[in-house]
């Protein structure tokens, strides 16, 4: 295979711990009640269009997009709307949610529930984008940016390449890996649909070299599809970051503060490609997703196909319960995930995994003074100086932080992972980004 491609700057290589990579995707039974949050995507929260007592079917629209950067939400189950009330989300804040009591499993008539592959793309690019928009598809890699917005490049910009993100650089998570192995054909058609919508001739699938079976399988499949190429990549975190992936695959650098379309690229996750296939060919909106439940103490690390709105607790039960010495339950991976404050929190569109960490490995270590080893600068994939930025944010020197390009930080956590003094660098970087972001928004308002 020769020398494998990767991004140019920094990066770390944490222990991979892909415990559930051999566990086939299991369909989790429909829960008794689902809690569907109204703010599941990046951007404006959606507006509920159902009310208490309404009967809903699987796939029925229950909330409309609340703005341009927003997404529709469909009922993941069939039953009665119990109430629309604030419920605890993964961060511990209570936000508006639709509670649905499940009665049977009656699907909307327009949805094609069969497994047969439908490879012919009948729709025009505009129709594809509209279908994706109405199906409420968002980026399933975790950032939950509405997919339809990405497919509509701003005037004057054209896409040249579609890059499909099958990197899954986060340790532990395997949901994308399993999707690639089990739904390869569907992903290929999904990619063709996305290529047609974007009017591009070339698509790359970037996969890290620790998923050799997926690389072999998708390479074989890509022979029969025109313009799709699988690119094996060296294992390096955070390769799944949009800008890092573009650098690794097509060797282009996205300018600071700009979007990938600036260099003619659009990046989509493999899970998103599958959701696009289902929405366009089978008329099925985004109502379920694959979630990895894993951790060193977990008896049965698994990958589940879960309806949106299922409480996290049920996923953990299906993986044979919470281990005794659990320290933290994290939504997402160990590097960028956020710990849950309650197991009642529901699965949302952006939940890629539930990671259960043991007490010994989850706690923070004692912080000691910075020894100026510059490891954080060395590993920063964006070429920033995390020690300087975090210090500036800590001391409230947000102007300095802005001048030192704090807004370019992708919050990958490599700096904090590598810091030998255990300084919470990322916490202060996030604080700095928050404050600087506010200042920039205020400035633009004036």
């Amino acid at each position, binding site marked *: 295979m020769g020398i494998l491609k990767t991004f140019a700057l920094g990066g770390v290589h944490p222990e991979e711990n892909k415990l559930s990579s051999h566990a086939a995707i299991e369909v989790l039974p429909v829960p008794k009640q689902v809690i569907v949050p109204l703010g599941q995507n990046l951007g404006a929260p959606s507006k509920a269009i159902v009310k208490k007592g309404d009967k809903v079917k699987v796939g029925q629209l229950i909330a409309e997009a609340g703005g341009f950067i927003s997404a529709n939400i469909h009922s993941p189950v069939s039953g009665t709307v119990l109430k629309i009330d604030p419920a605890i989300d993964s961060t511990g804040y209570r936000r508006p949610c639709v509670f649905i009591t499940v009665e049977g499993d009656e699907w909307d008539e327009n949805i094609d529930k069969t497994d047969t592959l439908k490879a012919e793309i009948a729709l025009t690019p505009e129709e594809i984008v509209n279908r994706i928009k109405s199906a409420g598809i968002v980026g399933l890699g975790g950032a939950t940016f509405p997919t339809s917005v990405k497919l509509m490049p701003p005037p004057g910009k054209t896409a040249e390449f579609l890059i499909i993100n099958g990197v899954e650089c986060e340790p532990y998570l395997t949901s994308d890996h399993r999707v690639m192995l089990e739904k390869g054909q569907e992903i290929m058609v999904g990619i063709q649909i996305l290529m047609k919508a974007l009017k591009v001739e070339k698509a790359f699938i970037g996969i890290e070299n620790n998923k050799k079976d997926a690389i072999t399988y998708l390479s074989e499949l890509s022979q029969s599809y025109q313009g799709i190429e699988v690119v094996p990549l060296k294992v390096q975190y955070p390769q799944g970051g949009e800008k890092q992936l573009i650098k690794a695959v097509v060797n282009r650098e996205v300018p600071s503060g700009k979007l990938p379309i600036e260099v003619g690229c659009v990046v989509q996750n493999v899970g998103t490609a599958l959701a696009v296939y289902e929405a366009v060919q089978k008329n099925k909106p985004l109502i379920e997703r694959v979630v990895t439940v894993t951790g060193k103490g977990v008896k049965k690390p698994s990958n589940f196909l879960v309806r949106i709105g299922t409480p996290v607790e049920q996923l953990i039960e299906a993986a044979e319960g919470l281990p005794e010495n659990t320290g933290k339950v994290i939504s997402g991976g160990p590097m960028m995930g956020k710990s849950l*404050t309650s197991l009642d929190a529901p699965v949302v569109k952006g939940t890629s995994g539930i990671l259960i960490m043991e007490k010994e490995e989850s706690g923070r270590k004692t912080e000691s003074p910075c020894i100026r080893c510059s490891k954080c600068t060395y590993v920063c994939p964006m070429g920033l100086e995390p020690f300087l930025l975090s210090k500036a944010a*800590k001391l409230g020197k947000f102007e300095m932080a802005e001048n030192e390009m704090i807004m370019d930080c992708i919050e990958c956590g490599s700096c904090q992972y590598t810091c030998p003094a255990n300084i*919470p660098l990322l916490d202060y970087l*996030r*604080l700095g980004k*928050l404050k600087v972001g506010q200042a920039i928004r205020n400035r633009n308002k004036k």
Partner: protein
Amino acid sequence: MDNIIVIAVLALGGLGLIAAVVLFFIASKFRVFEDPKIDEVEEALPSANCGGCGYPGCRAFAEATVKSAKENKSIEGLNCPVGGNDVMQTVGNILGLAVDATDPMIAVVRCNGSFAHTPAKVKYEGATSCAFAHALYGGEGGCQYGCLGLGDCVAACNFDAIHMNPETGLPEVNDKCTACNACVIACPRDIIELRKRGPKDKRIFVSCVNMEKGAAAKKNCEVACIGCSLCQKACAFDAITITNFLAYIDFNKCTLCRKCVEVCPTNAIHEINFKPRKPKPESAPEKTVVRKSETIEKEAVPAKEQIEKGDTKAPDAATEVKEDIKVTKE
């Protein structure tokens, strides 16, 4: 030899003279007139440079007052909260204007969710910054409106006036507070409010900012305002308004009658610096008695401020607690 010295003296002297003449003309041409009163006013100000007046530092405030006096013949709306009425009177004398006295203000922490009242459900490990924690999660006790206890207000204070109480996990304001507004801005949850100091420092306020429905608020915190509107009904002066299940006492209308404090079922309304009440006669309704005894148990650790002033709702219990704490301190 002498010649060289003479030439050098003359040359340098001449150069100096020319430079002096040039500089004199430049200085008179580009002279900036500055009202000497600005310096005088600045001299009278406390030089805290805290920004509490809304201007970046005392010099800017002095400039603003002099400008306002010149243009509007009054300095209404300009107030140095740190200096208070005395300083503003001096400033008025310098400018030859009469200054109305303003009510002194003080910062008030409107959260009583101590460790005892809101038991921690999760443990926070991260940067010691309320602004960061606020963006990250709801709070250890589960109240998404309550104090996070990481001390952004303490860090913002220039006057050593606000400190965290390690027993309750809440900040406490002392008499050094100058109402400069720094902690109010620093608090990401808008818990701290500037209120009137009140006569003899007596004040009454709702010590809660939770805007959830009663049941949800009470689930996380025993002393949350549940929006039951009993206080609104008890108030004879229309000082209490309830919005989003949260009561708010207007300090301009409040007459400090303490009726609302008595009726509050969750003890969310606090009275500060009042004399202890006389014990109720025995004919008092049973319900109230039960509530008070509950209070005593719950308030094993009342706010320090109250202890110091010997001020809690049940006088006997308060003195007991006070003595206990004194013993432990000794």
